[in-house]
């Protein structure tokens, strides 16, 4: 180390985010001053990524007119094709998959493609699977866009071809388009050369789509459009947005859900550096400062007095006791085939099981955050937006604006797993409340970045609800399942939200999915539901209802197979005779895993075993065979997972594989460790030390096999999650004989 050395200019030039030279001086260096420690640094305003991301329009005007055949793409004079993606890229590959559809029908070269997040617009960018609204979730991005984005590409292609036909005076049918080049015989034109003329051609109403046998991108490997940016630190997330004059807000949330601020205790802030404003918001107190650290230091120094009269006072044990009480009474009926109670009474063998599922945090790597600026008559938001038009409407209402006056700039999200699709727009509205509070203090127009700490993210909500399942099933003397009766108890995710209209006849479909549509052929089947109101904020979590229903149904079916003395795969095969998608993955996973063949022995004589589970969610069937090793001290490892997936046509097989790998890892975190416990109305866990998640040394070897299919694509973001926990439990039962009915899984005392 040489403390005396000067900074070499040449090396500095290698640094991508290097500051511009501030003057003719010989040395370039950065000076961090006290007044500016939060946000300002001499000579550093070279890159404003968020503004760069939104300055594309200006650039394209400078470069010449663009060809914009529809809302989903535009072609610039330089032949670049910008695909406007209506769905959030939070890891699942939307920024690769949707551009693939356009490129396919447009016959563009992959290198021509650029990607841009769509602005909020429920009409143009409606989710065709569950709109009218713009949003990402339910593993619907590819499924609902498959036709739409292909049509968009095909329309643009037809217009380019029409323009070329007119220019060369040849029939359109005689023109070829390949790899971004339009040609007829020896004549060639780029998209850019034809763009101006193409823009004048009529937009075809229903352009012809390719025959799948002619696909060049769909079904093959296309590299992720975001891999480079995400491997070099240049991808911009909400956390990275920096705007001129921007301040950072950190919020003190109540120690128990629903408590209110009695006194904000701003005395504690006296003498602290960088603090600019204090704003009371509906769920706490925001400290607004020059930068994150100043804001957090301030937040931690507040001496808030809370009014806990309205606060939630209970603990997880109270919640469970109430669930058990309710499980003894009939609930709202979600499915009723035959006479389950009668058949159960007559059954030769009966199983009676109760399952307990804890609250879970999403714990995305990027804690919740949002950047917002409120000007005189409009607001701008920078966010990794999963529910664009819901959040836009909620912000507009909170700020007294028309929705069209709220502009949303879409950014990458550092994970979400459902969390950024909050029906109540919780953290987004918190950001809005802060700028509204600043405006009330005469400080309109200051951009504010709301940053939740990891602790806020884990303790302030929202959570996958806790559930309790009571399940009884019966076999006849020959080992056939004759009765199945399932009661689910847990909070409704939709109740009390703007989406409560989805609740029909007392059934929140997100509470019973995976159970009410049990795929097994059982003549007498009854599923009912209790949805008690409890003051814990709850929300969907990657694969929603299937996070718990797959566990209870797939472990009980396994137990029934064991009771009947039948092989778990053969037992399922019989009951799934009319479920081709389920069957296809069951067979493929079993075959690839070597089901029925002996396993290699474990280390030091440790016992090993296999388990299987199969589950459909969002139209995609997934089966997983798990191999575990159980040590003498009752600890265990998950060694290998063989996964088979049937998601219809796999548009990008490698992304499908990645989503299965990721779903397995996410599901394993919950299966092995995930548990949020409530004590006296507040969350006990705070960070990754006490809310443990899977690390690389705990990740099993994963093999993914895709069932070939020509059917329309269904989702892959979530369906990899549900089978893993029951498959692990079934493997553990195969080794130990113990059926685990409480999550997270432990064999210990």
């Amino acid at each position, binding site marked *: 180390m040489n403390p005396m050395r000067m900074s070499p200019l040449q090396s500095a030039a290698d640094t991508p985010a290097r500051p511009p030279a501030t003057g003719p001086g010989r040395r370039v*260096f950065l000076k961090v001053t006290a007044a500016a420690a939060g946000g300002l640094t001499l000579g550093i305003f070279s890159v404003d990524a968020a503004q760069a991301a939104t300055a594309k329009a200006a650039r394209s005007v400078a470069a010449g007119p663009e060809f914009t055949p529809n809302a989903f793409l535009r072609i610039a004079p330089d032949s670049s094709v910008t695909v406007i993606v209506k769905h959030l890229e939070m890891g699942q590959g939307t920024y690769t998959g949707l551009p693939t559809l356009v490129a396919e029908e447009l016959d563009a070269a992959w290198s021509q493609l650029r990607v841009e997040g769509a602005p909020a617009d429920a009409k143009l960018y409606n989710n065709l699977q569950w709109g009218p609204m713009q949003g990402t979730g339910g593993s619907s991005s590819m499924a609902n866009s498959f036709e739409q984005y292909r049509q968009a590409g095909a329309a643009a292609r037809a217009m380019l071809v029409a323009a070329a036909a007119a220019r060369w005076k040849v029939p359109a049918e005689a023109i070829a388009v390949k790899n971004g080049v339009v040609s007829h015989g020896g004549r060639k034109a780029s998209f850019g050369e034809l763009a101006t003329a193409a823009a004048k051609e009529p937009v075809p109403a229903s352009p012809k789509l390719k025959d799948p046998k002619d696909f060049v991108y769909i079904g093959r490997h296309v590299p992720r459009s*975001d891999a480079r940016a995400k491997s070099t630190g240049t991808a*911009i997330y909400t*956390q990275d947005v920096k705007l001129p004059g921007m301040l950072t807000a950190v919020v003190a949330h109540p120690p128990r859900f629903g408590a209110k601020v009695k006194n904000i205790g701003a005395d504690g802030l006296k003498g602290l550096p960088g603090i600019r404003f204090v704003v009371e918001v509906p769920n706490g107190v925001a400290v607004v400062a020059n930068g994150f650290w100043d804001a957090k230091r301030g937040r931690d120094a507040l001496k808030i007095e809370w009014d806990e009269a309205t606060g939630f006072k209970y603990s997880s044990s109270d919640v469970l006791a109430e669930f058990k009480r309710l499980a003894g009474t009939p609930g709202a009926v979600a499915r009723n085939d035959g006479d389950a109670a009668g058949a159960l009474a007559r059954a030769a063998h009966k199983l009676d099981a109760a399952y307990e599922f804890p609250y879970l945090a999403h714990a995305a790597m990027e804690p919740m955050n949002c950047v917002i600026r409120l000007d005189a008559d409009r607001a701008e938001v920078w966010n990794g937006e999963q529910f664009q038009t819901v959040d836009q409407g909620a912000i507009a209402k909170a700020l007294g604006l028309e929705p069209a006056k709220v502009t949303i700039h879409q950014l990458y999200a550092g*994970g979400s797993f459902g969390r950024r699709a909050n029906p109540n727009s919780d953290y987004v509205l918190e950001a809005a409340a802060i700028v509204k509070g600043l405006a009330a203090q005469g400080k309109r127009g200051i951009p504010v970045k709301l940053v939740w700490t990891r602790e806020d993210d884990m303790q302030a909500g929202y959570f996958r609800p806790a559930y309790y399942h009571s399940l009884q099933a019966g076999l006849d003397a020959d080992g056939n399942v004759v009765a199945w009766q399932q009661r689910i108890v847990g909070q409704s995710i939709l109740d009390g939200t703007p989406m409560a209209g989805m609740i029909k006849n007392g059934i929140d479909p997100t509470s019973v999915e995976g159970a009410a549509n049990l795929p097994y052929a059982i003549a007498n089947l009854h599923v009912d539901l209790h949805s008690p109101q409890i003051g814990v904020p709850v929300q969907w979590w990657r694969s929603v209802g299937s996070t718990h229903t797959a566990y209870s149904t797939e472990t009980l079916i396994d137990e029934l197979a064991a009771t009947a003395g039948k092989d778990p795969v053969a037992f399922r095969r019989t009951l799934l005779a009319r479920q081709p998608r389920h069957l296809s993955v069951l067979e493929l996973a079993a075959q690839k895993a070597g089901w029925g063949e002996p396993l290699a022995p474990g280390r030091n004589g440790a016992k090993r075993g296999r388990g299987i589970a199969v589950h459909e969610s969002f139209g995609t069937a997934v089966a997983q065979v798990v191999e575990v090793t159980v040590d003498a001290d009752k600890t265990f490892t998950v060694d290998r997972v063989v996964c088979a997936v049937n998601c219809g046509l796999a548009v990008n097989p*490698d992304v499908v594989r990645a989503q299965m*790998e990721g779903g397995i890892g996410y599901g394993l975190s919950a299966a092995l460790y995930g548990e949020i416990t409530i004590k006296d109305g507040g969350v006990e866990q705070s960070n990754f030390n006490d809310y443990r998640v*899977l690390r690389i040394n705990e990740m099993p070897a994963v093999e993914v096999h895709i069932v070939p299919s020509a059917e329309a694509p269904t989702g892959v973001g979530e369906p990899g999650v549900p089978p893993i926990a029951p498959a692990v439990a079934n493997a553990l039962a195969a080794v130990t004989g113990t059926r685990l009915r409480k999550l997270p899984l432990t064999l210990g005392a």
Partner: protein
Amino acid sequence: MPIFFVNKVRVDIAAGVPGDTPLLWILRDSLNLTGTKYGCGKALCGACTVLIEGQPTRSCQVPLSSIKLGTDVTTIEGLKTREALALQAAWEKLDVPQCGYCQSGQLMSAAALLAKNRHPSDADIDNAMAGNICRCATYPRIRAAIKDAGKSLG
């Protein structure tokens, strides 16, 4: 005025900048080097990993006051070693990132590993990488990409 180097650019810290400010927030908020991420603030997740004198270090736990005069800090923006470039190429080739938020930290840890050991075993990779959480569970690809990068370096 403490002086240290970030990606070989000299950084002068004026008197009065609070010494408890973690390096992470100097990098992100003051120097606008946003490739280094905030994930937990407690050295539990590894998203904020940078190299300090070549050692992978959680920058959220490095208060300004602890940074010695002349210390060399490397962030993802300044990671230009042969190992790093091989890793980034492998990351792209194998499509490692999903949400991508943790990947800067993963790459910093992986670069430090390959600098010492071009052909790490699975156990070496576990040891070097277990401090870096990825909620998208890109772990199998991280493992494969580290090996691939090592191989490409010969």
